[in-house]
């Protein structure tokens, strides 16, 4: 069930109505939300609902055992059980073919040419997100940062909660489980803010992300040799905005739907292209994912206190890369970012001793650093967008040789690009003011705006059910 679809619209209204009628009956409300979440997921593929249940069961029981165990060895055993279970599922569905192909390539370079069969499996949508939610909860219980819940229904709802199950945000148990136990008081403001977020997200996705993809990004990346350097450079920036509009649009919708039901999800983006460093970019981009890797991998490796910080950073960023998909281009992408974040750390620690104090303390430096960071992020995403390393190199070669004949960017694509940039760099309080004005206006004005946007979305909707991050 695609979010921008009539089916989802009807589903959301039914769930909203049922939720509104049961605000005072918590148990019934949770039963309804759990059933709705499983129904939503089963619309994508009913067979994989068993995976949702499996992830819920593994982590629920492991967490209870961890909490109940007295010895550290037993706690570790149960943690390992949960990690192996969740990461095993993820490895089988997401990385098995990558490993088979990599082994086959390695063997063929050694002179052997075995025919290793690839698995004909579908990637269960959202598996990277809900399995990480399960893992984060179990690790939190292991670290004694959270109590294990006794209520399996609450935990199953946390794993399968339909606004987040497909593409995050990757929530923590301590963020969601208390809301299921004692929900926040439902307020009119939250409901209206939810509606605003839903339509803002839909507009980001259908009007901006899809138009940028169709008019600029997809042509440039599928036939890079046909395009001039200027077109390809614009495509690189357009892709950065496309992927931002895509995932932040989804997050807006997820947060909006959750708000209309009376729940709060964490923010996932904070104007990432205004970052003044690559490290700062990762604090603003897909915050729930980067936060997961920081808390559960980087810190587990020793962070900046134990071991070699730079090696820890490289491992963490390589993992971030591979989380996006089993392919070498993602790993190289992650390593590149890890390398630059490490360099920034080195610079931060040593700039005084290196005599860069005048340069770094200059008022222009933040702007220069923001410009540099933006360009590093945008151009490294050539690796992210390409199917493999070879395609990425082909794209860069086409960009450097300027052999293509197409120079002109389609007007519609250019308009989407310019407006996307303008929206990204508008002050944050403008958004808040619009939201406040939206909340204050009468119901009929809300409806007029929503109806108008809905019609605009029908015009722009390509009918595609997928968001970029559904493949991760």
């Amino acid at each position: 069930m695609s979010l921008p679809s009539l089916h989802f619209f009807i589903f959301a209204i039914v769930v909203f109505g049922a939720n509104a009628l049961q605000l005072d009956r918590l148990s019934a409300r949770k039963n309804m939300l759990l059933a709705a979440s499983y129904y939503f997921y089963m619309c994508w593929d009913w067979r994989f609902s068993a995976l949702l249940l499996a992830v819920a069961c593994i982590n629920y029981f492991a967490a209870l055992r961890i909490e109940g165990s007295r010895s550290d060895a037993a706690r570790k055993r149960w943690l390992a059980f949960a990690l192996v279970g969740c990461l095993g599922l993820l490895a089988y569905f997401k990385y098995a073919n990558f490993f088979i192909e990599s082994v086959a390539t390695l063997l063929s370079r050694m002179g052997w040419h075995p025919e290793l069969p690839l698995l004909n499996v579908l990637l269960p949508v959202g598996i990277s997100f809900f399995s990480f939610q399960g893992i984060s909860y179990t690790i939190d219980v292991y670290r004694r940062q959270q109590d294990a819940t006794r209520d399996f229904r609450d935990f199953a709802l946390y794993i399968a909660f339909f606004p987040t199950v497909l593409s995050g945000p990757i929530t923590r148990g301590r963020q969601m489980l208390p809301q299921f136990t004692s929900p926040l008081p439902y307020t009119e403001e939250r409901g209206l803010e939810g509606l605003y977020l839903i339509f803002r997200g839909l507009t980001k996705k259908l009007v901006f992300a899809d138009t940028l993809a169709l008019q600029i990004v997809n042509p440039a990346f599928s036939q890079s040799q046909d395009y001039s350097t200027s077109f390809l450079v614009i495509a690189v920036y357009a892709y950065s905005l496309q992927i931002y509009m895509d995932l932040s649009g989804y997050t807006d919708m997820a947060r909006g739907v959750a708000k209309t039901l009376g729940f709060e999800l964490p923010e996932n983006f904070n104007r990432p292209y205004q970052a003044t460093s690559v490290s700062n970019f990762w604090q603003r981009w897909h915050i729930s994912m980067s936060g997961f890797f920081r808390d559960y991998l980087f810190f587990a490796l020793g962070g900046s206190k134990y071991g070699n910080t730079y090696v820890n950073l490289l491992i963490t960023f390589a993992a971030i890369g591979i989380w996006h998909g089993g392919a070498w281009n993602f790993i190289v992408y992650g390593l590149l970012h890890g390398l630059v974040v490490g360099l920034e750390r080195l610079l931060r620690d040593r700039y005084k001793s290196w005599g860069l104090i005048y340069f770094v303390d200059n008022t222009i430096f933040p702007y220069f650093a923001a410009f540099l960071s933006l360009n590093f992020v945008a151009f490294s995403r050539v690796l992210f967008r390409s199917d493999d390393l070879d395609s990425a190199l082909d794209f860069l070669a086409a960009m450097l040789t300027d052999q293509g004949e197409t120079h002109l960017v389609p007007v519609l694509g250019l308009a989407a690009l310019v407006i996307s940039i303008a929206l990204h760099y508008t002050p944050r309080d403008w958004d808040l003011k619009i939201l406040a004005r939206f909340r204050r206006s009468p119901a009929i004005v809300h409806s007029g705006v929503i109806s108008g946007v809905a019609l605009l979305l029908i015009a722009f909707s390509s009918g595609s059910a997928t968001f970029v991050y559904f493949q991760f």
Partner: protein
Amino acid sequence: MSQQNNFPHGQTRTFSRASSNTWLQQDLSLASNPTRKPLRVLCWTICLLLALETVLQVRSHYRYGQSVLNAFSQETLYVTDALTGLKVLRPNHVFHGTEVDIRTNGLGLRSPSISSAKPADTLRVAVIGASTAQGAYARTNEDTFVYRLGKLLERSHPATHIEVINAGIAGYGLTEQRRMLEKIVLPLQPDIVIAYSGFNDFAEYCRDQTGETDGLPRARRVGLPLIEPPSWLLAIDVIRKNTVSLRSSATDKKPYRSAEALDLTPYKRKLDDFFEVAKRGNVKLVFATNARAFRRDQPEAEQLALSETARYYNPCFDLAGLHTLHDRHNAAILEATRRHGAHSVPLHDLIPGGRRYFVDANHFSDEGEKSAAEHLHRFLNRSSLLRDN
């Protein structure tokens, strides 16, 4: 004296006993109706969208005599013929609007009544096809090229009693047209059958492109059934038909199918079947090629504008692909007519493109209807087909 009330997640609120009643009242009124405004917004939104749909349905009813209400009043434009199983127009009916005036005969065709037995000394010509033959944008029956052809024939052959039957039904592909020929037209003993097959067969190329690629079966998602927007919802239809350019790219070739690489064997087989049925029915068959509004020699922006409906109905082809597809289909028609010893009229060459002759990508304007009738008439006059009867 004050009291502290504990709220979930550490929120606390302090209030004095004196003001507690007011506070409680406010809080209760909020608590009892926190979903009222969001619900009201949703209701208003649904009402506004329904109002828009109602306006469009009323407009459609006013203009074309057709709306969703027809389904409830058993007045739909199309029905399934119980005997043949074919979709035909509702028999013996008048569909009246400001833009159209469709009168149907007892067979469910946009033609005057016709006797099942052909009277002596009568020349019967039947035109088989889809929406263009039916006259999708022809205001009255008399504006269709089929009717105009009849009038031209009457004028040029005053001594002969000529009946021209319009057997075009919107949405028909070649298979339905063959069945129309077999089940409805041939029993009327026509002397000449003219086929203007149209482009509905293109739709099959865009259906289900998933499944197998590189010869390897791909695993598929098995989801629960989804609710699709109903086809009668005009708001979606009107918006999407008029905004194809927003969803298509002139530069991106990847999402489109290659019209060059398409296997036309199934289409050619359908053509052969059609010719075989005509041969068995012992009728003289004239097959007209399909004309289109967008031409390669027009500026690209004009081609894109003129091809908008074709791109809407065939979203898996870009402009160049549609040109190729039209040309290949027309070439297949010409080749089949040669092979089967039938006659062909190259309407794709004879009728110029552009807005003057077409309302959209493929349907004739009034000028187009006139032009098609004249070209067919000219062909029939020059050929021996009329003399032989």
